[in-house]
């Protein structure tokens, strides 16, 4: 990713200086920032700056970009400057990360139990009315892009019923409470990922129900309830746990969309603005952050799978 954003040194310095810069200025900055050095060296420098072991050349007063960091040019977590907001990236992210965390945690917290229950109910009743209704509904919901769910909810609850606010800036002085502002963003995100999880759980439960050991447990005379709770679920929920963790990929995308629809003051909307502005240090930091989250959850998913399924070698 570093490779893609910084592949052309001329563009980097042109982006920093904006559209009205002279060619000579661009070339000068290119030299001052060491943009013509080999890529690996520049990546090493970026890492060293982040770790607080090297100066951030952007805040060098000789260059005179007017980018000042109260912490100085060398500190841990130095990710450069947001060109859009003329502030250190770390401060910008620090301000915006909490709303995004709240949004994702609320949606996951609501989505997981609901999706599990729906999936198990449908899977156990495979082919019957409850299954048809749940399967049909989750199939349609999983097909709706987040922006469609968002726009339709806005039409109904803001435009028509006037029950919920149309923007969620989380401003405490707003006439809507912060809780009311959270309802729709959380719902949209939860619906998008929850319908998918419910489908996976259903497929896994239905598949397990057809396996011979379930029939054996029934023939032992165990009640339906204990067959399902003790035998089916234990086996059927292994795969979905990994899927839930891998949902983070969808959620990362969903966060960008949902935050943009509702003007929510989080990292997703920030990433979009930064990308459209060409604020490359901010985009770099945000995408690195998103990728670290994605990779970490993927590793967590693999570990969870190993831990839950004794058949896979440790």
């Amino acid at each position, binding site marked *: *990713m570093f490779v*893609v*954003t910084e*592949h*052309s040194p001329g*563009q980097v310095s042109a982006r920093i200086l904006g559209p009205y810069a002279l060619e000579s200025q661009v070339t000068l900055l290119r030299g001052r920032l060491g943009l013509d050095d080999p890529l690996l060296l520049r990546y090493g420098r970026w890492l060293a700056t982040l770790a607080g072991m090297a100066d951030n050349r952007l805040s060098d007063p000789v260059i005179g970009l007017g980018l000042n960091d109260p912490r100085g040019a060398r500190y841990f977590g130095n990710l450069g400057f947001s060109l859009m907001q003329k502030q250190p990236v770390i401060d910008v992210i620090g301000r915006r990360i909490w709303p995004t965390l709240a949004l994702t945690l609320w949606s996951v917290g609501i989505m997981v139990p609901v999706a599990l229950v729906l999936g198990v109910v449908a899977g156990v009743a*495979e*082919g019957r009315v409850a299954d048809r209704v749940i399967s049909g509904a989750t*199939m*349609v919901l*999983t*097909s*709706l*892009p*987040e*922006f*469609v769910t968002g*726009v*339709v909810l*806005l*039409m109904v609850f*803001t*435009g028509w019923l006037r029950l919920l606010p149309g923007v969620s800036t989380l401003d405490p002085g707003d006439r809507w409470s912060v809780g009311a502002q959270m309802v729709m963003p959380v719902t949209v995100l939860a619906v998008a990922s929850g319908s998918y999880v419910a489908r996976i759980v259903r497929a896994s439960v239905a598949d397990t*129900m*057809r396996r011979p050991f379930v*029939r054996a447990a*029934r023939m032992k005379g165990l009640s339906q309830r204990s067959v399902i709770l003790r035998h089916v679920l234990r086996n059927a929920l292994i795969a979905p746990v990994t899927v839930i963790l891998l949902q983070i*990929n*969808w959620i*990362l*995308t969903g966060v*960008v*969309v949902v935050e*943009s*629809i509702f003007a929510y003051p989080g990292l997703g909307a920030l*990433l*979009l603005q*930064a*990308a*459209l502005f*060409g*604020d*490359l240090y901010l*985009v770099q930091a945000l*995408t690195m952050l*998103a*990728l670290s989250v*994605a*990779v970490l959850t*993927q590793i967590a998913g693999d570990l969870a799978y190993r831990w839950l399924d004794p058949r896979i070698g440790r």
Partner: protein
Amino acid sequence: MIAGYDLGGRRAARGRWAVRSGLGILIFWALVAAFAPLIAPYAPSAIDFAAAADPRPSAVHPLGTDLLGRDLLSRLIWGARTTFAVVPLALGAAFVVGIAAGAVAGYFGGWTDAVISRASDVMLAFPALILYVILITARGPSLSNIVIAVTLAYAPGVARLCRAQVLALRGLDYVRAAEARGEPAWSIIIAEILPNARGPLLVDLALRAGYTVILVGTLGFLGLGLPPPTPDWGGMVVEGSGMMAVYWHMALFPCIAISSVVIACNLLADGLREARP
């Protein structure tokens, strides 16, 4: 009898129904896209100033117009063209790369497999939208960047699936026989192995087609897609959503169009999965 004992036949029947309805919707939209110039009542950018004053659906404009007075039905029809050009292009690239990489990894094994598999494991973590955002920061929004982002995001998953299929097939007798006849590896992969791996790959294709329609719509919605005069469903939703409280039709109809295509793809995927045991 144990509940669900006789599900085999009924599942297959439901699967066939799902395949038919999914295909039906997709063919409908594909025809609309193909014959857009013939069926669209107006040009997609033609402005009707009289209608702009009252954009609601009327006899002249059955689905109404947008705020500029452009006929919504015509823009929907032309928008189908955008979707049905961008999505197959991007998906095609992703599947060609993914199948090639997966087949090579599965067939040759050894270090080839190790390199391809590790690389795709890493790439699997990248969400497509994030990839695209990185690409446009560096190179600006464009069709080729959409194709690159979709390929980078989806090819690893396709490769993983294809590799598993090839691994399962390559030990079979007819593959051994082809090897004994001295056929070159590429011809064995293309003529003997891939045709038999098509089932799961088709299901995956249908699923990813749905994701790609969502992704392309989302890019349009976020203003990251193709430039504005192109009639694009996602872009139409965002243009209409500003006036949602008054003129609900502007955002609703493109929403329905996008959703119907994604639902069709998912029906197709579900149906293909259930129809073949």
